[in-house]
């Protein structure tokens, strides 16, 4: 299936889902006008990819979001929920959660994800200055 690449804009992150390499990445700031529509399309592509493959090839997810708005938070939860399901079904999924050293909000959101989606191998990563 085709990879998914969406270039960053001022209010939406770069989405670089290399399905052929099993590497997914989100980078930038996320406050799209219609969060449900923006993330909905991305989650649909992700689900499609997850359904098509059954090999035990590990998936790596790198998330480096400097900011996301309140309406993006739930959509992110849905996205990681889909990955967690896949991990529970036996595909190793690693989530690298990048945050600035002094960004408590982003660090804590990572902890929420870690708690809710225990099947993911969660790695909290501090962004080096």
């Amino acid at each position, binding site marked *: 299936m085709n990879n998914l690449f969406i270039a960053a*804009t*001022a*209010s939406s992150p770069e989405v670089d889902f290399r399905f052929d390499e099993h590497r997914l990445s989100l980078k930038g700031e996320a*406050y*799209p*006008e219609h*969060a449900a529509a923006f993330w909905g399309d991305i989650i649909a592509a992700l689900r499609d990819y997850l359904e098509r493959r059954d090999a035990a090839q590990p998936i790596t997810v790198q998330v480096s979001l400097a*900011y996301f*708005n*309140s*309406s*993006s*938070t*739930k*959509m992110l*939860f849905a996205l990681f929920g889909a990955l967690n399901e896949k991990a529970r079904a036996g595909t190793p999924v690693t989530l690298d959660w990048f945050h*600035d050293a*002094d*960004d*408590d*909000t982003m660090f804590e959101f990572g902890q*929420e994800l870690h708690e*809710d989606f225990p099947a993911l191998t969660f790695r909290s990563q501090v962004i080096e200055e």
Partner: protein
Amino acid sequence: MNDPRAMEARATNTTNDDMNTRNCEHLQSFCQCAEQRDVIFYYVGYFSQSIIAAMADAVKLRVEYVGAASPTRRKLFSSFIEMAQNIVHYSADHYPNSDRAEHEIRHGSVCICTVGDRFYLHCANPIQEDNAQRLREKLEHLRTLTNDEIRREYKETLRSDTPEESKGAGLGLLTMARDASEPLEFEFGPSSRPGNVMFCLKATI
């Protein structure tokens, strides 16, 4: 200089100069007034997604320039975006043709002030009178919560179904309450628009 047309032209110029001086004074006194009231950013007008993105840049530069610490800058930015997007989604004052457009455009205002190491974010927009009561109850409830309770409610809301009346995740006010160092303040005032009240919200960072 006996040419009457030249005289007339000069007279017109003089009048324009006077007017320019007065306009300039007008703007200067406006800016001085804003400065005396510790305003570092102010906007009143139409809000759309692209206007918000441009303002977001301006706000980032401004709060960095005034020397806010980076955790404060992040909280300010977060609350600013929540307020501005609330205006785009919920202000009762639509730009006339925005109903037909893909992108909504609605009227409101935002203001950022700073005193000492505190920042105050204000926003105002008209809302339908019918929606005021529900909003009041929500905000009054938030004001009774401790920081721990706000975090707990945030976590619960994050994992629950989105309320019907919300265009986002129903997390906007909770996010602002979480980022603020004092309870959110609010007020409903009279609006010149029939059936509307003016909703004002203040967050202290």
